[in-house]
Structures are given as C-alpha cells and as structure tokens.
C-alpha cells in the first residue's frame, strides 16, 4: 500500500492541474464572443452535417475482439514474470492455454471477422 501512495498523489496532482487549467481559463480569460468564434472548429473549413455522426457498426466487432485478446494478454502476463522458476511445466501448460486461443484466432480469421470490407 505505502509503495503506491506516491502514485495516488501523482494522479491527484495531475487531476488538480487539469481541472485548475480549465477553471482558471474560464474564470480569468477575457471574453468577447463574435459569431465566427462561436462556430465549431473544423480545420478552417465550414462545418457540415449533423452534430452526431453514427460510427460504423464494424468498429464494434473489432472492439469485442480487442477486449477478448486483451484479457488473454493479462492472463498470460503473470507467467512471463515467473518464466524461469515455472520451468518446463509452466511452458507446457501455458502452451495448451495459448493453443486453445490459437484455434480461436484461426477461427476468427477464417470466418473473415478480421476483414474490414465485407
């Protein structure tokens, strides 16, 4: 616990700085709005279209796959830390774990879930 208190403090300080910047600019900054200033900024060109653009549903599958492989990476990590002391048995059991996921990866790949245009 004590090892992590500096980390907490760091986060706290970071949050305070960020919040302070926003509040101070809105409190102290001079304000003199013109219609041009109130327009949404879109790299200099006039903005077009609605406020809300629906993203493509294709992102969703990618996001799901990311989460699953993310969890796998997390589960494998503790083994890598102890790679030497876990020895060959560790390697063998972890291989079976990874093999299972390799089958899934092949499945996902062959089914075309990794392809963008379909």
């Amino acid at each position, binding site marked *: 616990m004590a090892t992590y208190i500096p980390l907490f403090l760091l986060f706290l300080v970071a949050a305070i700085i960020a919040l302070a910047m926003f509040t101070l600019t809105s409190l102290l900054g001079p304000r003199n709005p013109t219609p041009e200033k109130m327009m949404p900024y879109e790299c200099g060109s006039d903005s077009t279209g609605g406020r809300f653009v629906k993203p493509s549903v294709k992102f969703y599958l990618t996001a799901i796959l990311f989460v699953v492989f993310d969890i796998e990476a997390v589960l494998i990590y503790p083994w890598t830390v102890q790679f030497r002391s876990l020895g060959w048995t560790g390697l063998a059991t972890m291989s079976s774990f990874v093999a*299972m996921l390799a*089958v*899934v990866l*092949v*499945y996902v790949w*062959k*089914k075309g879930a990794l392809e963008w245009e379909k």
Partner: protein
Amino acid sequence: METRTFDNVASLAYFAPELGLIAAVLLLVVWDLASPARLKIAGLVVISLAALAWSGGMGAYFLAKDAGPHELFHGLLAFDRFSNLFRVIFAFVTGAIVLFSVPPRGPGVAPELRRDQGEFFTLILVLSLGMNLMAASRHLLLIYLSLELVSVMSFVLAGFKINDARSSEGALKYVIFGGVASGIMLYGMSWIFGITASMHLGECAARIAALTAQQGKVPEVVFVGTACMLAGFGYKISAAPFHMWTPDVYEGAPTPVTAFLSVGPKAAGFAVLVRFFSDALGAGSASPAVATPWPVLAGCLAMATMTIGNLSALGQENVKRMLAYSSIAHAGYMLLGFSVFSDAGVAAIAFYIVTYCFMNLGAFMVVMAVAEQSGGDETLSAFRGLGRRAPLVAAAMVVFLVSLTGLPPTAGFVGKFYLFSALLTAGGAWRWVLAIVGVVNSVISLFYYARVLRAMYLEKGERTEPVAVRPLLGATTCALAVPTLLLGVYWGPVYDFVASSLSMLR
C-alpha cells in the same frame, strides 16, 4: 474408500469426460472451417454425439465401478457419485438436443438454425462442459466460473435466431438479468469468504460449523451471504424472484435452445444448489444441533415459484411461452424436495430431474415439430385438430402433458410422489402447508395443460391435411415418450439407481 486429493496431473484420469468434451469442441471448430459443405452437418452431429457418448459413458463407467470419492485439482472439483450421475444426465440431455437441432433437409422450413451450425454445436458442447463442472464444483471460484461459462453460452444461444426481434430482446434481457444475478452472487460469496477465509466448500463448512456452535445459531453473516448467493442459483433454476427473464427468453430462443435451457442448466443449477447447501452449510447433516433458517427460506421460495409459474401459465396462448411458465412451476416443485434437506429429498429431486428431462424435452420437441409444419406458429391454434392430423405425435404430447401435470400412470406422477413423500416424511406443520400448496398448484396446472389437450382432440383447425413430421423428430419424440410412460409403471430400478448415486463429498 478413503477420500484422496489429487494434484493436477493425477486428476486428469478422472477428468477424462470433460477432456473429451474439450477435445470435441476444438475438433468442431476445425471441422466447421475445413470440412466439405456436403458432409458438414453429418460430421458436426457425429463429433458431438461421440463426445457426449464418451462423457456420459465414462460417467456411467465410474458409477458402475463405484470409483471415488476423490478430490481433483487440489480440491477444486469433487469426483463422487453425485457428479458422475449428473455427467450421465447432462450427456443424455445434450445428446437429445443435438438430435433436436439437426436442421431439416431441403430449403424452406425453419430458417432459424441454417447458418452458423458449426458455432451452434460448439456452443452446445461448451455449455455441456460447463454443466458438468457446475455439478462437480467444490470451490466458490469454480462455482462462479462454471456458472458463468453456462450463462455466457446460454446468452449467445438464446439470441441465435436470425433477424428476429424477439430473440434479440430475449437474449438482451437474459444478459442483463444474468449480469445482475451473478453480481449479487459474487457479493454473497465475498461475505462467505470474508467470514470463513476460504473458498473451498469443505473448509467453509468447518468454519461455519465452528461459528454456529460458538454462537448457538447460524451466524447472520452466513445468512446474508447465502441469501445473496441464492440470487445466482435461483436465476439458473428460474426460481421465483429471479424468474422474470424466463418467459421472454424461452419464447424468443430457437426451440431446441429453449428445451435445452429449460432442462440442462436448470438441472445443473439444482446440482450446484444442493451441493452448496449440503457441503458448505452442512444443511443435510443428520441432526443439526441448532435450528437453521434454511428449510423455511427454501420453502418460501418453493411456494412463490410454484404459484407464480402456474398462475402466469394459465392465460398463455403461445404454447412455448406456456411451457416456459410451466418450467418455472416445476422448479418450484423441485424446491419442495430441496426444502427438506434430507437424503430422501435430494433423491426425490434427482429422480424428478430424470423424469423432467424426458417429459419436458419431449413436450418442446412436439412444439417444434408442429411449428415447423405450420410456418413457425407456436400458438394453440397450430395444435387444433392435431389428434387427427398427426396421431402419433399427438399421442406422445398427451403422455408428456399428463406427465407434466403429475397424473398416473406417468413418470411425472412418480416423481411428484417421491417429492411429496419426502416432504411429509420429514413431518411438521410447515411441511404440510408446503405439500398442500404443492397439490393445489398441481391442480391449477391441469387447467392449462388440458387446454392443449382440448385443442388437439376436441377442436377443429382450419387445416385438416396430415402433418408431415420429420422422421428424426418423430422417432426422437416417441423415444422420449416411451420412458415417460415406462417410468410411470415400473420405476423401481431407476429410482434405486438414482437414490444410491447421491453420496456426495462432504
């Protein structure tokens, strides 16, 4: 035989049924990707059935050899007659579902399962694996993991229909309810873990027994923890306050999946419920030194579950939805046996599960066979005049419905008889109240089951041409009707076998 605890490598021999299932799952994925289109379905079915035969066969072999009891994987899993009995039951149920899900040849009918068949069979097998583990878990971590394994697979299967809003809605409700229920269950587990400082059910039991003896009553913490955990278990068996998802999911899911969910995970839920109570809480021990609150709690759950299920089933027009409510009611009947916390009660539940497998699977199978031939119509109107249009299937449906009502000479009657006799043997005014409520509920259930009977035999539908039921479905239906009848007249050996298979690791 002395109980032994095995390490990971030594456990594998006793874990062979599940290893077979895992191998089959991987094989199914590969087959799905690599097989020629013509052989695809046949291969999927053969691989699934082979794995299930292996799993159930090994379970039966262990039972016959009277192997165990052992503790596997450092005490995480129990290997005892109880878990082996459930291995056999689950393999049978899953096998029936696999046959059930074989899609019809030729174009047209039942588009719901035409795509993604490889995935469908894979998920069914993973679910079966999860149920096996549920029945064998002796560790809170594993209880949770296997429960989630079953739940996640059920969510996907419930939403398996293509372009069907009801199916998607049912699956979504299932996910939300499931998430909340397992969250509450985890919270309850954290209380149990907090007070016992262990997640192993045996160690929990020792610590809880010590605390109970010390305080002269069951500690409040244990009560709170158990009540929360009941949310998770109750959700799986669709007991009263946690049953809300059942009708929508059962109606929306493809019929084979509905049949599966109403039998398989429910039986697994009962297995884990019974094991948790008798193992961790010592609720089944012969003479508890102090009065425990569990019988009253379970009794209230049972009464609420039965009554809500039966009353809601009364007005249903959709037969599938009606059977969904009826499956809630049946969970209530089984909870009656659970509320006794005696060996007789557990034996009655296990026997009831066996009979329930036959009759409920059969009833859903008839619904599917009928709906398939009437353009997906699952309402009562599709059943009108079925007695003349498809005499054999209608006769089988009569057997299933009579059995579900619990009338002789069917398996359902014998099952209910044992449940009530376990209840009344235990004695006491509370048990009598429960039994009376149970009987009244059985009478209520007669009304809605009889509506289907009336539609089949006394009413005339618009169509009179004979219904061409697929041979596979017809044969399986009859194969399920025979034991439903047979167990109603000659149940002795089966009951004895089940009752002798309940010794559990404690």
